[in-house]
């Protein structure tokens, strides 16, 4: 800026401010404001997303859209120092806090969110997208793709899925031709719960070429009797638990007749690793199961 | 002045008959005592007379009307039933409790009138409980509580007063006071009183007439000297006794001699 006077937009210094320029200025300013308003509502500006389920939060990060997330639950995996606001726990959402973030979109899952919370937010005018819980890989892929589309990250979603499917296929190929172990998948100790083939755990085992001794159970997560496990005598027991390492083995080790116990094939897997229904986590889960079933494989 | 009449009463609980074909009349303005051993049906008879128990057969008549036909609120203005002293669940004050006796006159929502307050005041003074009016019922002695319960009935300004074992739990002072008061009330204001008693001498001293119950039936009825006889006492109570008029008031006095052989 030259001269002692601050220059005014559109006006040469020293001259009176022409009315036409003022009008132009006002119209330009108005146009900018209106455009900004429109942009806000037309979706060009970044979406404000609140996620009410840990798996959905994880997928938002997988889609490389962390800047869209403004709210999440206490169980959601958030990076340290994240500025994402906590809106309660998945079972009991703090509606005020969720609403106060003025989200454009709220993500919920039938797995962990209550219907009344979803309806409460809808009554306040929030857009809530509810995803059904997934037990199969194909379902997880479809959900992931859908989420990618909603968040305008479809390309990224497709890329991730392509990569995951390729690695999954490769992993399965490597295991072809190996002997099929009979596996008991254990979730929890009292009561003793297992997974049928109609679950993602069942799918891990199927893709890894193992036989689930309770695969044909009528319900997805049936409660089973210890005696029945002994009768079916699996080769491997995979325990998914949060207990301290070693604690899961001891109850089985006293059964001398159990093949798995004799051969020391009782494996513990971290629950967090295998219990989140997203495509990437499915891949990691599969790889962990494969490693557990075929230790020392290349 | 109203009388109370039991007409051929048969009553009991469930299928079990406790009193059988009992009839008697309580004269207006008298003090009528029901006596008899435990299990003779005294309490059952008493509950029938006060309208608390429906008899299997027979009726109770108040001033000629069957009490089963009298609307309960009107019945409460005619007859007051004073229960045995018992623990009260909530800390009502004496005045609150006594005032409740005026409910039959006021109904559910009408406010109390100055006349109600006057009646309460009079009764409390008469029964010597005015200075404990703000005390909670549970904090009273046995004698005070009995007088409070009595006051709660008297403020109903009934014509008939029914009291069940009023002298149990009372010491001698209060027993005498209470029975004297009942006698005075019946003589002065014509109040008809029906009491159950276990003490034969108290009964003889204060009652105008007695009915002696035995195994659900009336064994003897009439003036005290007619009912309190050696034979009757032996038959009903299984004890040996002698009965003579006492040297001071000439009322029949029972001397207990021992068990019947």
């Amino acid at each position, binding site marked *: 800026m030259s001269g002692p006077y601050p220059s005014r937009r559109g006006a040469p210094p020293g001259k009176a401010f022409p009315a036409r320029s003022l009008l132009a200025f006002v119209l330009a300013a108005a146009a900018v404001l209106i455009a900004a308003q429109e942009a806000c509502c037309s979706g060009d500006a970044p979406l404000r997303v609140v996620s009410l389920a840990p798996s959905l939060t994880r997928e938002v990060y997988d889609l490389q859209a962390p800047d869209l997330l403004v709210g999440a639950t206490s169980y959601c995996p958030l990076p340290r120092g994240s500025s994402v606001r906590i809106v309660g726990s998945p079972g009991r959402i*703090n509606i005020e806090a969720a609403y106060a973030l003025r989200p454009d979109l709220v993500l919920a899952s039938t797995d962990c969110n209550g219907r009344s919370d979803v309806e409460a937010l809808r*009554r306040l005018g929030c857009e809530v997208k509810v995803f059904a819980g997934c037990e199969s890989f194909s379902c997880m892929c479809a959900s992931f793709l859908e989420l990618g589309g909603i968040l305008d990250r479809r390309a990224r979603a497709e890329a991730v899925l392509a990569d995951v499917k390729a690695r999954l296929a490769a992993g399965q190929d490597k295991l072809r031709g190996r002997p099929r172990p009979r596996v008991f998948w254990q979730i929890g100790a009292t009561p003793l719960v297992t997974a049928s083939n109609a679950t993602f755990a069942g799918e891990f085992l199927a893709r890894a070429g193992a036989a689930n001794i309770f695969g044909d159970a009528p319900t997805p997560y049936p409660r089973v009797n210890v005696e029945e496990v002994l009768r079916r005598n699996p080769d491997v027991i995979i325990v998914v638990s949060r207990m301290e390492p070693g604690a899961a083995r001891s109850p089985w080790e006293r059964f001398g007749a159990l093949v798995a116990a004799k051969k020391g094939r009782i494996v513990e897997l971290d629950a967090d690793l295998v219990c989140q229904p997203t495509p990437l986590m499915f891949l990691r889960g599969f790889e962990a199961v494969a490693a557990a079933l075929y230790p020392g494989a290349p | 002045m109203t009388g109370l009449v039991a007409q051929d009463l048969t009553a009991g609980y469930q299928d079990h008959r406790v009193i059988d074909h009992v009839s008697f009349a309580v004269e207006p303005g008298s003090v009528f005592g029901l006596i008899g051993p435990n299990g003779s049906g005294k309490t059952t008879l008493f509950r029938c007379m006060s309208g608390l128990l429906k008899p299997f057969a027979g009726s109770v008549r108040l001033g000629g009307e069957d009490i089963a036909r009298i609307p309960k609120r009107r019945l409460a203005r005619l007859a007051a039933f004073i229960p045995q002293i018992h623990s009260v669940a909530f800390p009502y004050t004496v005045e609150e409790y006594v005032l409740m006796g005026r409910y039959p006159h006021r109904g*559910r929502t009408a406010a109390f009138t100055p006349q109600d307050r006057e009646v309460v005041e009079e009764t409390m003074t008469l029964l010597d409980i005015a200075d404990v009016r703000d005390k909670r019922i549970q904090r009273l002695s046995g004698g005070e509580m009995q007088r409070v319960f009595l006051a709660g009935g008297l403020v109903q300004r009934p014509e008939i007063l029914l009291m069940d074992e009023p002298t149990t739990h009372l010491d001698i002072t209060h027993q005498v006071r209470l029975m004297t008061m009942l006698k005075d009330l019946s003589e002065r204001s014509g109040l008809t009183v029906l009491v159950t008693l276990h003490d034969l001498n108290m009964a003889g001293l204060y009652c105008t007439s007695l009915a002696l119950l035995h195994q659900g039936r009336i064994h003897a009825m009439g003036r005290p000297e007619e009912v309190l006889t050696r034979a009757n006492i032996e038959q009903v109570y299984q004890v040996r006794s002698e009965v003579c008029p006492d040297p001071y008031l000439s009322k029949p006095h029972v001397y207990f001699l021992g068990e019947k052989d």
Partner: protein
Amino acid sequence: MKRTATILVLFAALVCTMALAVFLGGTALSAPEVAAALLHPGSHTTAGVVIWELRIPRIIRAVLVGSSLAGCGTVFQAVLRNPLAEPYTLGVSAGGALGATTAIVLGLSGLPMVALCFTGCLASICLVIAMSVFRDFTASTIILSGVVLSFLLSSVVMFIFSVASSRDVHASVLWLMGSLADTGAVPLPALGAALAFLLGMLFVFARDMNLISLGDEKAHLLGLGPGTLKAVLLGLASLVTGLCVAVSGIIGFVGLIIPHALRRLTGADHQWLVPASMLSGGIFLLACDTIAQTALRPYELPVGVITGMAGGVFFLAYLLKASPPEVF
């Protein structure tokens, strides 16, 4: 008169608590924001929506439920002649829990769930009254029937828990802990109407409650036999309790502590005890709910936890301070 003054003070306290509660909730709003929202009801600011759509209805619901539970508490204590009786003594809560758990397992929510829950409450009331009328309808028979039914129904609920999925069990347990959040199923006017009805009935029957609490013998002073009176009062109070349970789950201690504590303040005469209890019940539950929302923000504690703790503390203090018990 001292008791009129108590009622007026309680009323003022209720208004103050309600006013204060508008400023406190699950999310921090500054006082100017709240004030602005209150003054401009139509605005669609965040604060405006939070205040008018969430907080104010919740405050009203808390006051209605708290008053109703306290009012029902006085009825139960009077009829059962026991200062430790409370609205859930007759198994209403167990029936409601069974209804709600069944609804959750069947995947119902909203109005169908509320209806099923209320049906559960109703069924348990009818069963208790039927069981006790079959015997002799004295206070001890009624209490015993209630206890028996509670145990039976609770074991059915436990059975359902043992076979249901963990998600359903989790949802049921959360429901059981009680919540004053809006489920959209029972509109506030309906709840308000129920409370108005209760209030009216209690006003009419206040003297009867005095009499019945003394024993069966005095009940006839106002014209109703003891049996009829007990059935009417218990039925009425149980229905209102059932509605509260269907709306907000099982919130304990309000119906027990409030009448118990207020009796020391206003005396036992129900003509004063009932209005004082209802006002205090509203204040108490509103205060507990506000604490539940703000103590561990943004996590919302179940309101039953706060009322339970308050109840525990109250009884501890009572036991330690009171002269040889007036509780028998």
